[in-house]
C-alpha cells in the first residue's frame, strides 16, 4: 500500500484534468485527417494519455540514480503511447494481431501522435517543475542567508551588551577608585588594562575579520582586570607562539570563551582557579584553547547560549571546516577550544 501510494505521488486531480484537456484539444486539432468520429478518436487519445500519465508519474517517483529522471519520464511517455494505443484497440474490441496487420497504419499514426503530443506536454511539465524547484532552492538559500545575517547581528548585539556590561564597568571603576587612593601605580596599570580592553573591543563591533593577536590582546586585558579584581582567587597564563598572532581569527569568540571561564569556571568556586590560553597549529588547522581549573560544568546549570552562538558563526564562516569543542579539564574545570582551517595551508 505504502509503496504504491509513494509511486503514484503527484498523480493529482489537476494532473488528470490537464491530460484530459490536452487529449481533447489534440483530437480537436487532428480529427479532420481521420475518417473516425471525434468521440472514437477521443477514446483512443484518452487511453494513450492516461497510460502515459500513469507511467510518467511512476517514472518520476522511482528512486534510482543511474538514469536522469527527465529521460525516464520521456521514455515512460513513449512506452505509454504504444501501450495506450494497444489498450485503446482492446477497449474498442479489436484483436491484437489485427492491430499490427490491417490496422497497422492507423495504430502507427495514433502512437506517433501520442508520442508527439505527449513529449510536448511532458516537456512543459518538466520545465515547470524545474523552475519551481529552482525557485524553491533560491528561496531556501535566501532564507538561510537571512538567518545567518540575523545570527551575526544577534551575536554582535549580545557581545556589545556584554562588553559594556554595567556590572563589569562599575565594579572595575570602583577598584580603580580605591587603587588611586591606596596604590597609584597599580591604579594606573589597571586603567591601562581598561583602556586597552575597550580599544580592542570597540572597533570589533564594526569589523568582520581580525587576527588572533588582537583577540589575544583583548582577552589579556580582560583577564588583567579580573586578576586585580579577584585578588588571589584567579591567575592566568597565555601561551601563544608569536608566529601565530598574525593568523586570521574570527572576532569576539575567544573573549566569549574567556568570559565563560571567568564567570562559570573560576568565579563560582571560592578559592581556586587559573585560566590558560593556548594556541597551536598543525595539519593546516589553527587550534585555540581556553582551559580553566574552575568549577567545571554543573550538570543542571546552563551557560551554553554563547556557545551555540559561536558554533553557528563558525558554521557560517567555515562550513563544516571549523569546530568548537568542550572537554573536562583534569582534575577539574573545562577546556573550550576552537579549531579553524588555516587559509592556504590546506592546499
Amino acid at each position, binding site marked *: 500500500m*505504502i509503496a504504491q501510494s509513494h509511486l503514484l505521488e503527484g498523480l493529482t486531480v489537476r494532473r488528470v484534468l490537464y491530460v484530459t484537456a490536452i487529449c481533447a484539444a489534440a483530437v480537436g486539432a487532428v480529427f479532420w485527417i481521420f475518417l473516425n468520429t471525434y468521440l472514437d478518436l477521443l477514446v483512443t487519445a484518452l487511453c494513450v494519455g492516461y497510460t502515459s500519465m500513469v507511467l510518467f508519474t511512476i517514472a518520476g517517483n522511482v528512486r534510482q540514480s543511474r538514469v536522469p529522471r527527465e529521460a525516464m519520464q520521456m521514455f515512460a511517455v513513449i512506452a505509454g503511447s504504444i501501450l495506450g494505443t494497444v489498450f485503446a484497440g482492446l477497449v474498442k474490441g479489436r484483436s491484437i494481431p489485427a492491430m499490427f496487420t490491417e490496422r497497422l497504419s492507423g495504430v502507427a499514426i495514433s502512437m506517433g501522435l501520442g508520442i508527439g503530443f505527449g513529449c510536448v506536454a511532458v516537456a512543459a511539465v518538466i520545465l515547470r517543475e524545474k523552475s519551481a524547484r529552482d525557485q524553491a532552492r533560491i528561496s531556501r538559500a535566501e532564507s538561510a542567508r537571512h538567518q545567518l545575517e540575523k545570527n551575526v547581528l544577534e551575536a554582535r548585539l549580545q557581545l556589545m551588551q556584554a562588553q559594556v556590561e*554595567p*556590572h563589569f*564597568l*562599575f*565594579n572595575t*571603576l*570602583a*577598584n*580603580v*577608585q*580605591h*587603587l588611586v*587612593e*591606596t596604590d597609584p601605580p597599580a591604579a594606573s596599570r589597571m586603567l591601562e588594562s581598561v583602556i586597552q580592553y575597550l580599544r580592542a573591543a570597540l572597533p570589533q563591533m564594526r569589523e568582520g575579520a581580525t587576527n588572533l593577536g588582537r583577540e589575544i590582546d583583548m582577552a589579556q586585558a580582560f583577564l588583567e582586570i579580573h586578576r*586585580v*579584581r*579577584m*585578588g*588571589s582567587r584567579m591567575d592566568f597564563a597565555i601561551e601563544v607562539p608569536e608566529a601565530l598572532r598574525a593568523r586570521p581569527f574570527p572576532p569576539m569568540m575567544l573573549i566569549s570563551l574567556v568570559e565563560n571561564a571567568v564567570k562559570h569556571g573560576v*568565579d*563560582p*568556586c*571560592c578559592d581556586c582557579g587559573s585560566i590558560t590560553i593556548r594556541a597551536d597549529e598543525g595539519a593546516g588547522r589553527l587550534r585555540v584553547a581556553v582551559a580553566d581549573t574552575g568549577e567545571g*560544568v*554543573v*550538570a*543542571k*546549570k*546552563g*551557560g*551554553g547560549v554563547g*556557545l*551555540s552562538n559561536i*558554533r553557528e558563526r563558525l558554521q557560517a564562516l567555515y562550513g563544516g571546516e571549523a*569546530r568548537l*569543542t*568542550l*572537554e*573536562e579539564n583534569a582534575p577539574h574545570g*573545562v577546556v573550550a577550544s576552537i579549531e579553524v582551517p588555516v587559509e592556504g595551508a590546506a592546499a
Partner: protein
Amino acid sequence: MTAAKAVIADDEPLLRAQLRTRLARTWPELAIVHEMADGRDVEHVLEAFRPDLFFLDIHMPKVGGLEAAQAIGSRAHVVFVTAYDDYAVEAFERGAVDYVLKPFNEERLVKTVQRLRERMGSRPAELQSLVESLAARLAPSRDEHLRWIKASVGSNVRLIPVEEVLFFQSDEKYTRVVTHEAESLIRKPIRELLDELDPAKFWQVHRATIVNVDHIASVKRGLKDQAEIALRGHDETLVVSRAFTHLFKQM
C-alpha cells in the same frame, strides 16, 4: 553605649578594603569585626561576632547578598552594596532599604551613615518579603533539568550542551548521543535521561529513543501505525512506535 559592630561581605578584596577605609573616615567608631567573600557563613558569623550591621554585596559567588539577608532576617541591620542593579535599587528606594552604590560617592555614604547611626538603637527592619521577591528575580533561574551531557571520547570527557543533542538512542549497554557534529556513547540509560531532561524539549518516541523536538524537520506516517521522524541537517530517521504516535497527532 558600646560601639556598633559591622561585617563587610564582597567577593572583591579591593572593594572590601575600599569600603573599610571609607567607613573609617565617615564612621570612625564603627568596628569592622569581620569580612567575608560570600554569604555562606552568615550563621557562624552572627554567632561568633554578634554584629549589629552587615554590608552585603548583592553579587557574590555561591551565596549572594539577598540570600544572606534572608538568612540574617531581623537579627541584624542590613545595607546592600551594588554596582548596578536597576530594579534592585528601585525596590530599595520604595522599601526604604539602605544601600550603597559602587563606585562610592562620599556624600551619599555620609548620608547613609547618618541614617544608619540613628537606626542602630532600634530593631532591624523586616526585609523578608522585599528581599524574597528580589531574590526570585535576581537569582539565576534554578533549572532542575539536565543541561550538559558528559561523554568520554578516548581519555577525554567531552561536554555537550543538551540543546545540541539531536536524539538519544539506547544501544544495548550504552546510550548513543547524536549531535550534528559527532556521535558518542554514554552509560546513562534512556529511562534515567527521561527523568532528568526537560520534558518540554525532549520527547520519548520509542522505547529506545528520545528526540530533541527542536531538531525535528518533519514527521511522516510509516508502516504499521508507526511514524518516521526526519531531523534537520541529519540523514538518520527515527521510528516513532505506535505507543507514542499520539504525540504527533494533529491538534
